């Protein structure tokens, strides 16, 4: 499964509805950018979609979900904990196997993080932490990517290279982005969120930056 039909999505926060009811049809191969001003409900929507498609998605939440006391390697390896036995995972905690070490090392190369492989994530900068969460999502290797502002702490060239990676590695993706430029360049479909509802849903080739700016 890599396309799905999401209907009747709603979310309330202390009695006040913040999302929906909202329906979104995701086709296989769609690369969707969720845009809209902060507070419009993008993060909540990502979370709701994740609850629906859990099993087949790689998630990069806004607060990253890293285990600070573990090394970069272990945080990335966590993307595939479901693929191994408890015994294998426990051994890896104490002493990782050579095969996994090599795999994670290769993955970190494209993110420029290899020298930090064994550093505890607590010691990393904001941008480095974000790249660890990205590496974990890539390592997870699910057909669908759900990401909430995945490159917000990265500089221009690195942000572009990561967005290229994410575009090429996942057949279907839904990414919340506040950067309109990135949204237009790396996604095929733009979904604009306003007050918890879909205010815009167009292929990106039909849009220019100023069309999206009206949402803000």
């Amino acid at each position, binding site marked *: 499964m890599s396309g799905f039909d999401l209907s009747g999505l709603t979310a309330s926060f202390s009695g006040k509805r913040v999302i929906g009811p909202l329906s979104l049809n995701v086709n296989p191969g769609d690369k969707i950018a969720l845009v809209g001003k902060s507070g419009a409900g993008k993060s909540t929507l990502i979370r709701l979609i994740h609850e629906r498609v859990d099993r087949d998605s790689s998630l990069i939440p806004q607060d990253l979900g890293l285990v600070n006391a573990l090394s970069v390697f272990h945080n990335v390896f966590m993307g595939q*904990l479901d693929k191994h036995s408890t015994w294998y*995972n426990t051994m890896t905690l104490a002493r990782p196997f050579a095969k996994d070490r090599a795999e994670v090392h290769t993955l970190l190369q494209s993110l420029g993080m290899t020298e930090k492989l064994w550093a505890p994530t607590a010691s990393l900068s904001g941008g480095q932490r974000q790249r660890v969460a990205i590496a974990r999502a890539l390592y997870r290797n699910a057909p669908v990517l759900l990401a909430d502002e995945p490159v917000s702490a990265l500089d221009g060239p690195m942000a572009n290279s990561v967005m290229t990676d994410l575009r090429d590695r996942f057949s279907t993706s839904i990414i919340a982005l506040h950067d309109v430029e990135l949204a237009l360049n790396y996604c095929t479909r733009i979904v604009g969120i306003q007050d918890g509802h879909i205010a815009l849903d167009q292929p990106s080739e039909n849009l220019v930056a100023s069309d999206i700016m009206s949402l803000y």
Partner: protein
Amino acid sequence: MARFMFSSPTVRTSLIFLAIALVGLLFADIAITASNPWRDLGNFFLGIVTPNFFSSEGLMTALLRTVAFAFVGVALGSICGFLLALVYKSLPVRIFSAFIRAIHELFWALIFLQFFGFHPLTGVLAIAIPYAGIFAKVYSEILEEADPEPGRVLPPGTGNITAFLYTRIPDCWVKIRTYTSYRLECGLRSSAILGFVGLPTLGFYLDASFSQGLYSDAGAMLILFYVLVATMPLWVRPKLLPVYVLGAPFFLGEGLPIVWGNVERFFTEDIVPAPLRNGEGLTGLMPWLNDLMINEAMPGIWNTIVLTQIALVATGILSLLAFPLISSHFGGPLRRNAGNVAMVIARSTPEYILAYILLQLWGPSMLPAVVALALHNGGIIGHLIGRQTNSIKLRADAATGFNRYSWELVPRVYRSFLAFLFYRWEIIMRETAILGILGIYTLGFYVDSAIQNIRFDRAMVLILVTALLNIGVDTLGRYIRRKLALQTMPTC
């Protein structure tokens, strides 16, 4: 202005507790009954400054046994406590843990002595059982505080054990380690006082030296104990820990073999209430229970509460007086170092040992108990508060001297001071009850007398009453802390 101050809930609560303690003083038996207390105190201090480290080879053995019992007891307690913490959400587990930690180590020792005798198991279990209850509570709180987010992004289908090992343990590890090593220090104190009921640890030799008037031997023992506790960071190393834990069971000593017949008799006969044992049935049970409650439990509870309330307020006053000794806002480095040494001595001497020494010197009354409890607990809270003031940055032109104390520092630390004090309320009560063994008429006195008279059925009921009283005070303390919005980390 005054009205404003008295309307503050923290000040009002403090004044209510002060008033209760003052009323308690009217009923308390506070006196120095020894014929020449100051000469004895002088002799004791003379013994401390002229310690005799070579009087008997027993001293080093006692030290070794003290460490061994602490390691085995705390290790076993932390393992069991950890397992309990995993299922701490279940109400029966929480009640069970609260119950086993409400019974003091010495009471557990007295119980096990009746059927395991002087076997090492008695000492190990006496530490491990109450500690398991405490570990269960604190570990579960630590585990609960772990960041839940990493768990949410795990791939679905990840096994429970794997998820626990990757997302919970790493996040909690440092806190668990810090708390466990802190508990080890408490374990050394618990282990030392187990000697007072006959186990081969420091308390036993301290008791022996005192009863023979060998103050220099007692002084040597106390000094060695302080050195042992103070140097813990040097010899308790993560790498050496497995060596200690695996090695410690071999240094517990032989003790005496367990007579399994005693174990059976204890559970099937000794602790069965006498009327039931004699076939009088429920009709005999009520008068028996009535007599026990009116003649032993009630006076025990009354004295325990009176002494606890006085000791609590004395502890508070002493903490507030003592914290400037180590605060960087007062005095020079010399005063602070001296203050630090005094506080380390006060807080590393178990209240039981302090009370024992003061009782020997001043004779039996509530006074030695109040002073012992205030010194030990005041040392702990004073140390914590003093350390807290060191992180306070005062403006450059802040008042000095007593004005700095009363206007700048006390108002800033008062809430956390109260938090620590109410946290220790239950601990002070648990100790107050146990000090009865030394001859003050608190619950421990009646428990100890019942055991001396081989009336274990009565002893068990009284221990149960003590546990319930502790649980009650613990609940009340937590209620007050929540009401006043006071937060604190656990201390022991």
